[in-house]
């Protein structure tokens, strides 16, 4: 089905099901329980899961397949956001023109940067992309302020023209939508003690992310994908056989740049603001972290990595000492303050530490990322009934 073999079709359908059921999966705890702190099923975070997942999928086409490590992907995210917000300001609050322009602009941007950067490989390529991204950031932050509005970020105004929308009411800012469906409208389903949010914006992001995932699946399985893998395993040898690999790497670079631009446009569509810090090197580094954490070169890994990092950032950073005190209030006072002090280093403002420790553990013990962890558990589960000898038998 869909031009995929049976195994991949099944894989795709599982991904589709998981994505569509996200509102349930991320809200496993009743709303009023103490564990509700760990619920992540609110619209803004679900949207970010899908958007950053999409960006990591695109990054993985470049990094996972060709091995070219770009440290400048945030630039495309930022360019996509700025293009989208300008579309909202000038043309229409419908997200389609915004998404299309963002993909075109980020594609052109990636073409220009890729054309220059891909003349080098390895660390030199990484540094070139990093330099371009940092340059874009500085430009957006303080030079091109008429276009980017500097540090404050580009925002919608009441008196923007919005040619296609005609004269709307002037009392409040319009909300981005898709043919009348507003991105921020949410239906809340209450079942017993649980409540689940179904948000239009999330489902728009989810559908686009699934399409992006499908595209990446097709690329992975195509002759083009094979060529990209060949670049990763031995580019020199490819060149010696007389094959010019640069068009392939440039194509991969542009495709992943378009993915990032699309993600940027979606960020702007969910929350119409584009800020320069979206292009900062830390944002580029975050995508690299997501991909490595989840498992570079695997299809599902980057999405898991993106979810993992965004979860840490949004959930752990909100646990403060007051909450810790309420958790450990059963302990004697002196012990409680010690325990709270200890855990407070890892939550709230210390969430970066938690992420760092987890990242180290995963890179050291699971070099293939979260996907490798999943595979190990799955194979352990499969083999648990069998006796030791059979698994120790040498292969024929």
């Amino acid at each position: 089905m869909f031009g995929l073999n049976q195994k991949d079709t099944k894989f795709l359908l599982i991904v589709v099901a998981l994505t569509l059921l996200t509102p349930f999966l991320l809200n496993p705890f009743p709303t009023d329980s103490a564990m509700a702190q760990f619920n992540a099923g609110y619209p803004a975070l679900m949207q970010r899961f899908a958007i950053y997942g999409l960006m990591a999928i695109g990054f993985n086409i470049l990094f996972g397949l060709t091995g070219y490590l770009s440290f400048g992907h945030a630039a495309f995210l930022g360019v996509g956001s700025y293009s989208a917000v300008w579309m909202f300001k000038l043309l229409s609050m419908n997200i389609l023109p915004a998404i299309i322009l963002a993909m075109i602009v980020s594609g052109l941007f990636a073409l220009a940067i890729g054309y220059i950067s891909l003349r080098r490989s390895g660390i030199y390529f990484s540094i070139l992309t990093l330099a371009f991204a940092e340059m874009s950031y500085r430009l957006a932050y303080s030079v091109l302020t008429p276009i980017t509005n500097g540090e404050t970020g580009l925002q919608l105004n009441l008196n923007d023209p919005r040619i296609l929308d005609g004269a709307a009411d002037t009392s409040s800012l319009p909300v981005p939508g898709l043919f009348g469906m507003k991105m921020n409208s949410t239906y809340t389903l209450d079942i017993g003690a649980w409540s689940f949010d179904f948000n239009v914006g999330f489902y728009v992001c989810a559908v686009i992310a699934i399409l992006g995932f499908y595209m990446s699946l097709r690329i992975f399985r195509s002759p083009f994908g094979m060529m990209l893998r060949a670049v990763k395993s031995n580019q020199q040898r490819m060149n010696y056989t007389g094959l010019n690999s640069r068009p392939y790497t440039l194509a991969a670079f542009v495709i992943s740049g378009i993915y990032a631009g699309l993600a940027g446009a979606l960020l702007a569509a969910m929350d119409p603001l584009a800020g320069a810090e979206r292009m900062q090197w830390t944002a580029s580094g975050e995508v690299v972290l997501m991909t490595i954490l989840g498992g570079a070169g695997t299809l599902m890994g980057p999405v898991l990595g993106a979810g993992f990092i965004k979860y840490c950032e949004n959930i752990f950073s909100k646990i403060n000492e007051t909450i810790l005190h309420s958790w450990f209030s059963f302990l004697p006072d002196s012990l409680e303050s010690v325990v709270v002090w200890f855990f407070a280093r890892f939550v709230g403002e210390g969430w970066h530490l938690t992420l760092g420790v987890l990242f180290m553990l995963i890179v050291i013990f699971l070099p293939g990322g979260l996907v490798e962890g999943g595979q190990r558990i799955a194979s352990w589960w499969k083999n648990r009934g069998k006796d030791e000898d059979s698994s120790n038998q040498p292969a024929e």
Partner: protein
Amino acid sequence: MSNKFSRRGVLKSGAIAGSGLLLPTYLRAESHSGFTNAPTGSEVVFGFNVPQTGPYSEEGLDELRAFQLAVEHLNGEGDGGMLNTFSSKALDGAGILGKKVTFVTGDTQTKSDVARASAQSMIQKDGAVMITGGSSSGVAVAVQGLCQEAGVIFMAALTHSNDTTGKDRKANGFRHFFNAYMSGAALAPVLGSAYGTERRAYHLTADYTWGWTQEESIAASTEALGWQTVEKVRTPVGAGDFSSYIAPVLNSGADVLILNHYGGDMVNSLSQAVQFGLRDKMVNGKQFEIVVPLYSELMAAGAGSNIQGVYGSMNWNWQLQDAGTQAFVKSFGEKYGRPPSNAAHTSYVQTLLYADAVTRAGTFNPCGVVEALEDFEFDGMGNGPVLYRGADHQCFKDVLVMKGAENPTNEYDTLEIVETTPRAQVEYEPDHPMFAGGDLGQCNPGA
């Protein structure tokens, strides 16, 4: 397989399961009383969104201390602080409208994107009905926009840019802190009497919204005094090393250096300017001087002896002698063992003002709160009589002109009050050119 699950059976059980799921279902928005996150239980949630990491984290953490103190006082714990001196007596220390105040916190990392993500999670997940915080004007403007769209109130804490209540003002956003224009208006006369009216000023400015508006304001008010502006140089935020920017000052013919920097940047640029020996120089037959238009205690502590004799302005200082200040400093000091900063004061006051407005309006509905806060006059919060102007949601009050203490007696006694500039001197029209182009719009109650 196929005879186990007949089509009819599947349809039947599906229909039963479906109706079972739908039975306890209702659209939550409809059960609300017409605005976002209307508190239904016995508690009401505030969102404290401050930088806990990054260049302004010191300010952010001090704001957080003040927020927690304010919540305690609202819930009737502790000694009540400024509730006892506040001119409005609507609050009685039993929560707000009978509901206990709870709060959630978030880390903005001084980035607009992160701050908005954090505010969204407070609104969507935790049901916060009011968001406050901010230590950078860019972040404050971004979060204020978000709150306007989401239909909750934003009580801006530390934000000094003219734009927050100027070009980017919003109906759901309120600012108690003073702004760059007020700094200029308060500082200029003091500078004039101290340094004379024939000075040549050189600006080093943090290259973002706040820096630009402050540079504009200070240049305008010093030029009105008769000063000349030699040059305005923009420096990147978080530069760390300013020596390459300070060296040209010596040869420019300027005799005053104005540092439009804040936080760690200001500590670095001031320290380096002093190390370059700028303040020992005689230029144009006059002693070279440095001015830091926006001061904070935390910066003063960081700059150490370098700030001795340097002029700047503040919204409030713990050394003031009125009853409100004393009550606040006492309860803050007892809880945290240190005097509160300027940023802590505005955070505390904003929280109380919101609570008071809700009580007077009798509802948490943002539109009711906006109505109660607009053109509200109050006293007893450490700044003398204050007006919350309805036209732009900016507070008008006295501004303090400060000077680095020549002989500090302890680590908190680093600044001394030179003059309390009366409110009338720092007032301006809502459509003043530096604030023009903004539109409050209408209050948005959300759902």
